[in-house]
Structure formats: C-alpha cells, structure tokens
C-alpha cells in the first residue's frame, strides 16, 4: 500500500498541488510570478477564445465518440469469429492504433493535400469531384478531415475491446436464443449489446476523454486554422503556456478543463452504472 501511496503522491498529488499553486499566480515561462488569488480564473470566465475552443472540443467529442463506438461495435460483430480472413481483417483495422498520433496526423495531412494528396487524386480520377478539395480551407472541412483521420487511427482499439466483450459471452446463451428462433439482430439487440455494456462504458469513456484532450491532430493538421476556428481546449492551453509564456494562466485553464472532464466522466459512469443495474 505504502509504495502505491508514494507513487500517487510523487506523480499525481504533488504535481497537482503545484499546478493549483501555479494557477493562483501570474507566473511566466520566463520566470518570476506572484500570488494573484483567483484572478486567472476570473479571466477565464471572460476569455471568449477559451469558451469557443471548449465548444469546438465538445462538438468534436460529440461527433467522434458515437462514430468510434458505432463503427467499433459494427466491426467487432463482423470480425468476431476466429476465421483466418476475419483475423486478418482485425489485424488490418487494428494496425493504425500502433502508429503514433503525430505520425498518423502527418500522414493524413499529406494524403489530403490538394496538390500531391492521394485522396484528392483518387476522387478526381473517379470523377467524384471536378477539382481537388482544399480540405483545410474551411473550418467544417478541416473538422471532418481530422474526424476521418482519427476514426482511421483509433477505431481498431474499440473494435478489439468489443470483440473481447462479445467473445466473453457464454455461448450457451446465444445458442439458446438461436434455438428459440431469435433473429441475428434480435440476438445483437437483446443479448450481445446488454452483455457488453461494460465494454461500451469503457470505450465511451476512453473515446470521450481522449477527444476532450485532443491536441496533436489539430496542431499538425490544421494549426488551429483557418483563423483560429479549430482550436481545441488543450491547444488553447498550449498557446497560452508555451507561446504566450503565461504559465499561471495556462495552469488555471488546465484546472478548469480537468474539472469539466471529471464532472462529465462521473456523470457518464453514474448513468451507465444505473442503466446496467436495471
């Protein structure tokens, strides 16, 4: 117990305490700084750029999470049997998960390039579009470009979790349902889905928290543009802390974001736990 406590104290509690202390100061990356009470938090309240970034992050999370859950579950249903072809399919879908997020973002940045990007070339050659799409010219297109890239990158992770969940269901239950004449979709809806609820909770939490903390993909693919419309909350924290050197303010932003994520995660766990009991 003691080593675990020590570990938590050194790597979680002490840094968290320092973060809180920094958030109550006007400390700069270049040094100095004095205690200013809750001034940073008051400033956050009036920082429209932060709330805009948070709104954008929430939109990103709300769009991406259902895609990852739905697609992950569908892929799991399609590849749950251990046939060689399905195992190969699983491997292919899972492969991008092991690539670094920065590398995959760079990969997609160039794939979507309007001049040398393969995707544009393919769409033009198939006569689906007349001329190459400039993916990062508008906030909406840039948003979808990132959503596509992240779906490709992480959908395999949810799929593997769902496969594990489905494979852990007692086959007798599914067999009994089959003998009772339950259709495929009936089995999915009434047996597989309820019995993989815990996996669903885990996948939702991981996807939602990961999306709320999104940074690399936007930093690399959109640079927050066009005109600052694709800044996420973490990107805004980075901008303030390391570009504007405002460490104190960046720390306060981090505390606020942590609090928001904690509230939503707790609500989500409580809701799912309640529905699991019923």
């Amino acid at each position, binding site marked *: 117990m003691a080593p675990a406590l020590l570990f938590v104290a050194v790597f979680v509690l002490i840094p968290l305490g320092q973060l809180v202390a920094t958030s109550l100061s006007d400390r700069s990356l270049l040094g100095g700084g004095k205690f200013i009470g809750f001034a940073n938090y008051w400033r956050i309240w009036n920082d429209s750029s932060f709330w805009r970034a948070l709104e954008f992050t929430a939109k990103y999370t709300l769009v991406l999470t259902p895609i990852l859950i739905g697609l992950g579950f569908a892929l799991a249903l399609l590849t749950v049997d251990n046939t060689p072809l399905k195992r190969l399919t699983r491997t292919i879908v899972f492969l991008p998960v092991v690539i670094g997020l920065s590398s995959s973002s760079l990969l997609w940045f160039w794939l979507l390039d309007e001049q040398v990007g393969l995707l544009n070339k393919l769409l033009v050659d198939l006569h689906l579009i007349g001329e190459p799409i400039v993916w990062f010219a508008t906030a909406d297109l840039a948003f979808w470009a990132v959503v596509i890239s992240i779906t490709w990158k992480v959908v395999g992770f949810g799929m593997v979790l769902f496969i594990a969940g489905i494979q852990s269901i007692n086959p007798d239950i599914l067999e009994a349902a089959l003998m009772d004449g339950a259709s495929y979709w009936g089995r999915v809806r009434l047996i597989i889905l309820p019995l993989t609820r815990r996996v669903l909770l885990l996948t939702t939490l991981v996807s939602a928290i990961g999306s709320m903390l999104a940074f690399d993909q936007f930093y690399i693919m959109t640079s927050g543009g066009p005109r600052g419309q694709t800044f996420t909350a973490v990107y805004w924290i980075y901008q303030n802390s390391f*570009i504007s050197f405002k460490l104190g303010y960046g720390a306060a932003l981090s505390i606020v974001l942590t609090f928001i994520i904690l509230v939503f995660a707790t609500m989500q766990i409580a809701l799912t736990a309640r529905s699991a009991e019923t």
Partner: protein
Amino acid sequence: MTTRRTCGALAAMLIASSALATAAYADAMTMWVRASGANAAAHLVDLWNSTHPDKIELTTIPDNQMVTKLATGVQAGDVPDLVSFDLIYMPDFMKAGFLVDLTADLKANPNYASVAQAYKDIATYEGKLYGAGFTPDVSILVWNKDLFKKAGLDPDKPPQTVGEIHEDAKKIRALGSDTYGFYFSGACPGCNIFATSPMMVAAGSKMLPANGNDDALTGDGVKDVLETFKEMWSEGLVPKSAQTDNGANFTGEFKTGKIGIQGTGGFLLSELKKDVPNLNFGVTFLPGVKEGQVSSFVGGDVVAIPVGSKHVPLAKKFIAWELTDEAQLEGLAKNNIVPSRPALADNKYFAADPRVVVTAKAIGVGYVPWVFHFADMVNSDSSPWINMFQRAIFDGDVDGAIKEGREKMKEIAGQ
C-alpha cells in the same frame, strides 16, 4: 592477491585516464542551438574546434522547445555556456535577465562595428548589448527566369515594386492552367512576417508596437501590400493551396518550376541549386510600393551567454572569434551561408554566384522588429498578424483586418 593487484592497477589507470580527460577537456564548453540553425552552427563550431584547444560540444534543441528549455535551465542553474536561438526572442530573454552583459566586450571589438545594424538593434536592451549575430538568414525575392521569358517578360528584370509583381504575375499566369504568377504560404505567420512584411516596411510602414502606447501597422504600406495580395488571390494568380499552407510548402512550391515570383529566405538558394539545378532563377531585394523602396527581414540566430554559464571568459572569446573574417568567411560563406557582416558580401566564395551576393547584401537593408511578445503578436497560430493577413486576403476585408490587427497588437504589447 593477484586479483587485488589487478584491481588496483585498473583503478589507477581509470584515475589517470580520467585525470587526463579532465586536463584535455578542462575548458570544454557546451552550446545549445535550435534545430533550424544547427547546420550553420555546426560549420562554425567545427571550425572553432579544429583551430582551438578548447572544444565546444553542440547540442541541438527542437525549435519549439528552446524557450522552455532555456527558461527552466536558467531558473534551475543548469545552462550551457553558449546558446544560439531565434533572434526574435532576444528582447524577452534580455528583459527576463537570462543573458550575460556583453557591452564592454562587443564595443571593444573592431569587427562588431561592421555587423548588420539589425543584429545590433535586436541585441540591445536599456543601452546594453547581450548578443551578436551568429547564423544569419534574410528574406529575398526570387523569380523564375524561364517563366519570365515564356511570358514575354525580360528575364533579367525582376519586379521593382509590389505593383510590378502583380503585373508580371498576371502575364505568367496566362501561360497555362498549372503555372502561377505568385506564391505565399497563407496560413504561416512566420513565413509572412519574413517574406511579406518587408514589402510593407519598404513602403514606409512600421509593423509592431514596442509597448501599449506605441502604434502598430502604421502607414499606407500595410494596406497597399494587402490590397495587392488580395487582388492576386482573387484573380487566381496564386495556387489555391496557398490558403492553407502552414509553411510546409514554403520552399516546395517554387521548386516545381511553376511559380513565377515568390518572397522567400536566403536559405532557399542552396536548396534550389541542390534539388533543382536546372531551375533558372534570379534573386533580388523585396520591393516596396514605389521604385527604389527595398527591405528584408533579418532573421536567423543570435549567439549569447546565458546567466549561469561556467565558462564566461571562454564563451566571450568564442563570440569575439565568430565575428572575425576567418569565421565569417571560412565558417559561413564557404558553406553558402551569409555572414552577419554585410561588408563581407563580396568574397571569393560568393563571387561565382551573384545571387548569393545579393542575398548577403539584403542583410544590410533589412529590419527586425524589437518587441516583447513577438510570438504572441506574430508567430502564434492565433496571432493578430496571421488573422489580419488571412482576413484581408481571403475574406477581402482589408480595412477591417488592419483595424482589428492594430487593436489586438496594441493590447498584447501593453501586457
């Protein structure tokens, strides 16, 4: 006994070799350099190491980590003996007290008098000097002579004004669907302060405010240049990809041979000569609105001594050496890097290529803005500079963009 004797002998050897090593590297210095300047710095450091008994160990720091690393290093007392960083951070570092005062040494140095004024300006804070130009870079205008010829333009007559860039770009664009008159990286704040702002400065504008009471983006140059860029964009003289180019294609586009004119950096010359040796291009100063107006952005790295350096006298000796003819010519010019002393532009290494001479001379006509919070005002992805640039050119609201840019820049300068 034998084992003990062997151990004793080994220990003695270790102590002796360690003492020898200490003696040999008693005055070995450490130097941090940001990644962008690492190649050029390595030439100078190699030359120093080959001609001096006291060696320098060079460590490359990723560009975006230099400020954090130096700031935390100074506060923790763990710094290198020398540091080479992007000159735009000089005002912030000097104000923060990170750097050793070099006033007496540099003023007594006869070579310092001929260093480009921009380097002297950026390294001065409250009358004291804290650094010297180290591995320079400077912005210039390049034009594709073959495209000029095809378009019926004189290939040896580059545009002398921003208006002429526009006129020439129209003729080049008329050559074909995939040939464009002009290029800029529309989503890259750094590229445009480097290659576009000098056109505004040449036309008499002042770009950035030094404090909250100072004005930003003054004069008609800003508007004139933005209007011209907006027209070139709306007339399709610039590739569509320019709008979203965050700098990734800043050097790549001109290499394709399908761009007529572009503002860029001196570093592009050696890249072009190496990557596309058959590309027939010229180099000239970045022009202003009227004929005869020229300017450039003096960039690159400065070298300074961080507070806490363990070898200050030796580090000062290195800074004095890097300004000598030997270092400037054999360390920089020989490797196609422009010296920080413009008077050395005409040298034996550049003689074969007048384009390099023009680049080296551009340092003498260049400017560098002396401001705190440069990153906030310009380099950041949400900076008022890039927002103004994009709103003016891509949204077409030049006046509104300038007004907003002025207000935001003043707000940042007042912090």
